């Protein structure tokens, strides 16, 4: 385990963490040491250079601006903080997020928002395969396209895609709602297009507003969700798998 050299921190603005000079461990420990009500509410991370696990497990309502691209699991298990990555994100950004928000200014790799339970994940570029896999309540808004097998086994929450979706969207989906504005290459097992009722248009408008999307009308989207035919096993459905 790397040692924490707190004395090095005094040479810097306490809100600015340069990962060229301080370790990932020091960054995350400092974020975890924040007491409720701390006035250190604005943080800036410099030179992330693809580091994994940047700002994971933060549980205070602080704003964290990451200046550059990050590796795996940025903002993992985030609870209440507002993270902005001014770059792209590697696999599993915002995995199992509980609350708060994460915005990726660039693209996101695989498994963005995997198993997320709450909060908002916004990807201003494209997201790769398995976006929203096993999501459990998180809201995800992707400005661009998403890759194949997205929302696989998605349990709850909303996935909004302004662009296109790849193959097998929503395979084995449970109760999550999927809204796609562009084309869907194919739907996965038990995922079907569904009627867009007033309540869904309102929900979608709210999601677009929260994600800062303007000039886009909810009526441009199609809604997808579970046909619920695989919820209880039936041998005659075996060829669906």
């Amino acid at each position, binding site marked *: 385990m790397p040692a924490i050299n707190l004395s090095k921190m005094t040479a810097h603005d306490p809100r600015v963490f340069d990962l060229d000079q301080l370790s990932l461990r020091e960054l*995350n420990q400092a974020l975890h040491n924040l007491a409720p009500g701390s006035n250190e509410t604005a943080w800036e991370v410099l030179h992330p250079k693809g580091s994994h696990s940047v700002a994971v497990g933060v549980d205070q309502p602080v704003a964290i601006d990451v200046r550059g691209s990050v590796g795996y*699991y940025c903002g993992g298990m985030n609870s209440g903080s507002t993270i902005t990555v001014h770059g792209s994100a590697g696999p599993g950004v915002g*995995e199992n997020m509980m609350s708060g928000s994460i915005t990726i200014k660039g693209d996101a790799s695989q498994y963005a928002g995997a198993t997320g339970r709450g909060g908002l994940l916004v990807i201003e570029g494209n997201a790769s395969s398995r976006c929203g896999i096993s999501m459990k309540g998180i809201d995800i808004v992707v400005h661009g396209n998403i890759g194949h097998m997205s929302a*696989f086994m998605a349990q709850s929450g909303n996935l909004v895609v302004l662009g296109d979706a790849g193959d097998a969207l929503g395979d084995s989906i449970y109760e999550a709602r999927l809204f796609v504005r562009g084309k869907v290459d194919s739907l996965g097992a038990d995922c079907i297009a569904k009627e867009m009722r007033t309540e869904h248009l309102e929900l979608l408008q709210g999601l677009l507003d929260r994600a800062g999307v303007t000039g886009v009308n909810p009526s441009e989207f199609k809604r997808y969700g579970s046909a619920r035919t695989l919820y*209880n096993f039936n041998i005659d459905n075996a060829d669906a798998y």
Partner: protein
Amino acid sequence: MTYRNPPTTPRKSATFDDYTLSEIRRAAATGIYDIRGGGAKRKLPHFDDLLFLGASISRYPLEGYRERCDTSVVLGSRHATKPIELKIPITIAGMSFGSLSGPAKEALGRGATLAGTSTTTGDGGMTEEERGHSKQLVYQYLPSRYGMNPRDLRRADAIEVVVGQGAKPGGGGMLLGQKISDRVAEMRTLPKGIDQRSASRHPDWTGPDDLEIKILELREITDWEKPIYVKVGGARPYYDTALAVKAGADVVVVDGMQGGTAATQEVFIENVGQPTLACIRPAVQALQDLGMHRKVQLIVSGGIRNGADVAKALALGVDAVSIGTAALVALGDNDPHWEAEYNELGTTAGAYDDWHEGRDPAGITTQDPELMKRVDPIAAGRRLANYLKVMTLEAQTIARACGKNSLHNLEPEDLVALTIEAAAMAGVPLAGTNWIPGKNGF
């Protein structure tokens, strides 16, 4: 008087035996594979095929009841700043709330705590029953991530990344609709009453290089305090152990095919994975080859029943064992007291394994509010503690007879095997010979 040709005795096929015939009829009638709980029921090479040599002229024993024989073990000292210290090298394996009732989980916590050991969550999140009554609780990190959250991660005493389990290496969890009660559904963020089939792969990593990054994330979230275990089914124990060590695990858990499950396909349980005995030496060898034996701890589970099994596993190089099925039996599972009700379910005490149906007469593998009242968590916890203590005393008895002042000083040289198969798997001589099959070229 006429001569009658003597008939031959009716003869049943060894290949198409009664069980096989009944399974064919069952499959044809229902159109679904057989699902059950528990582990492999077939006869397998096991610890029964090993014997201790005991003391003799060249080895002198310790006095039973007088000379100390240490049973403690520390798990997770490789990287964790707060490793787990156990009084006994027998832990309680992961079993989910959902598959087990709340009172059963509480009883496991109570029993483990009384005996000075840890218990483990399962594929359903952490309940207050078990956190509140478990002094040391291992929190499983599973592909489904049901109920996963950073608060529980931080209030766990260790984290176990589950890659697989012995009953079904390569298979995900299964909990059928009968057991998805309101509480279970809420904890798993699922609709009530559906047949829940968990993912078999983790959603956000694949392969050993990703696992290393995932372990780093879990350490960062928990400030490097918690020991991180990696649990694998008994598939490729040498490589799985080596890769878990490479990925940064503090503890490797290898679960052989006798290890139980709440529910999966019978065909999976009986035909995938290796026996526990076959998994131990390859796992130990991997640790030794990496120079990590006793630095990364090895826990083995699957069919551990008594202190002799514990002692044999430790003699083969294991640091601790885990029990699941045996712990449930100590709580009251399959107790003949409920024989009439087992008969009503078409089975008998000792054979009941339809745990997925949620109608367990013993009140353990159920979410039925009336049935689960049959488990008194305090009394059942006491029975589990008694059982754990008996196992420990038995293991000590053997260790002292072998002249060891610690269970962890037992060694392969204390053992012989009764069968060629067990000798080959355990890497100890066939009894009465100096032959270890597979060693020295033959």
